[in-house]
């Protein structure tokens, strides 16, 4: 496989913490415009993989390329974000002393240099965009609330909203539907499918209903490397996947 025609290319990536191998010779390729679901047991290394892609964790070995040529291991978090990789964290992290709306303002794509933000004035377009997102994430009437006062699920939504506002080329979504009702889960799946029409998405989830609704190729990780890859049906019939992940 060639690193150059792919959006995201991981090859032979390993990382260990104090001797514990969290990611072990992991290889994974995501084409431009593709959405991929990642499943795998707790501790399989899914979040760690996202940490590596976003520059939070440096791999001990292996290549990580974005957009064919950019070596992500050579860039820091901010640079990677500016390349167009956005992330929703497993544990929702929002700016607690900002209002819901300001959280989105901060996430909104646009110039990021200190001077440009100093003299920045919000345009009509931006305001419209924010309102649109507020509706999407159903927090419009809470837009002047401090994010600190949101419930757990509301924070999840806000994070998704921030991801939307960021408008990245590649979205890394870590457990987006944890803590959502079934109905909301379905909504989210629809939202992601919409997004995936124009961008690439990597979703981590344990909710098989949700994964099924996404209807995309699934990769199952285990102990830091790929255990199985293919359609959901294919993967979920794999004996090893049942053994370590789905259970009987």
């Amino acid at each position: 496989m060639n690193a150059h025609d792919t959006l995201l290319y991981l090859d032979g990536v390993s990382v260990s913490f104090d001797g514990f191998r969290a990611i072990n010779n992991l290889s994974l390729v995501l084409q431009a415009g593709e959405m991929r679901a990642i499943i795998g047991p707790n501790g399989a290394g899914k979040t760690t993989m996202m940490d590596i892609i976003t520059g939070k964790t440096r791999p001990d070995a292996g290549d990580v390329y974005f957009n064919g040529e950019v070596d992500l291991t050579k860039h820091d978090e901010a640079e990677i974000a500016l390349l167009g990789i956005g992330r929703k964290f497993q544990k929702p992290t929002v700016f607690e002393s900002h209002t819901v709306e300001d959280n989105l303002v901060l996430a909104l794509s646009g110039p990021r240099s200190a001077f440009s933000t100093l003299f920045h004035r919000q345009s009509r377009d931006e305001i419209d965009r924010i309102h649109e997102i507020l509706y999407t994430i159903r927090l419009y009437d809470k837009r002047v609330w401090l994010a600190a006062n949101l419930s757990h699920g509301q924070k999840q939504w806000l994070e998704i909203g921030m991801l939307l506002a960021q408008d990245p080329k590649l979205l890394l979504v870590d457990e987006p539907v944890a803590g959502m009702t079934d109905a909301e889960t379905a909504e989210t799946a629809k939202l992601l499918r919409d997004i995936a029409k124009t961008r690439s998405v990597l979703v981590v989830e344990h909710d098989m209903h949700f994964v099924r609704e996404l209807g995309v190729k699934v990769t199952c990780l285990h102990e830091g490397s790929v255990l199985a890859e293919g359609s959901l049906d294919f993967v979920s019939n794999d004996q090893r996947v049942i053994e370590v992940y789905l259970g009987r």
Partner: protein
Amino acid sequence: MMTQWFFLHVDRRGSIVIALLVAIAVLVPLSNLLLPVTSPLHVPTYLVSLIGKYLTYAMLAVALDLVWGFCGILSLGHGAFFALGGYAMGMYLMRQIGPRGVYADPVLPDFMVFLNWKELPWFWYGFDSFWFAALMVVLVPGVLAFGFGWLAFRSRVTGVYLSIITQALTYALLLAFFRNDMGFGGNNGLTDFKDILGFNIQAGSTRSVLFAATALFLALAVFVTSFIVRSKLGKVLVGVRDAESRMRFLGYRVDRYKLLVWTISAMMAGIAGALYVPQVGIINPSEFEPANSIEAVIWVAVGGRGTIIGPIIGAVLVNFGKTYFTAAFPEIWLFALGALFIVVTLFLPKGILGLYGMWKGKRADRAARKKDVAPPPVAAVSGRSPIPEPQAAE
């Protein structure tokens, strides 16, 4: 047009403060110079210098609040920038003495003569020019802050680690400036100033002008702070304060943001120091004392962190308290000051200014409960502090 632009960037409170400061800048000197001593409205020269000093402290507090209150960088060494600005001004004033020093040396300041210096060290060159000195007032603290910040923010030194190395910085400077060999007059510092821009520094009119300049610079500092805080940059800063790494994942170069406000803040502190020196008449290394920087932090906390007026109120109030207590109960005044600090923390968690918010919040609260509807929990109304503390220790 101009006013529109102004109000866009400064909120109502900020505008009131700026207006008030401008008024003080005009009225206090006028009252001092024009009104007869017997008039009840006459402000004695003693008070002009005293308030002038308070205002320079207030400016230091505003500078500190910009980084601490809005960006979560707790500097325990801001006194260093203040002192460096002060030294730059002091060096100019020293050079103005010329041959009027006790040894009548046309070039060397007195302390260099009696410590047997033969020629003016290179770093004193240029300080005979006011404009050069004025440049240095912002440049020296600015460059130091930039260098220090560049190192520290790039290596992601945060929290108490940053606080303590700022303290180390000011402490190291304290020790260095104490040394006579440094060429800044050792612990006696720079003193015995004669005039500034050709005006006698002890003249009432000069004092009044210095006072006015201080008030105006403070107004400018308030404006700059408001401008920063109300811009999108301000939001980024608060975001950095809350969740620095999250900000990075959004693509913000956190270190550059920090570096920018840190440097601006240091320059502001430098200007404050430069205004302080001619009004107080001396600059010596004790300004680098870590305790001084901690006190500045305390002014901000007492007044209300993360607000623009709070630091001014805090600085003036604490220093007025000090002035008053040290004369009224010289033997036990520390009890009074200590108790003030304890009481403010316990009962006014958001500082003096928080009182206002608390009062407003309580009213809204009561009203809300009566009507049993939930008002929008915006910052001022919610019981939570709008500013969660940056984690001090893990």
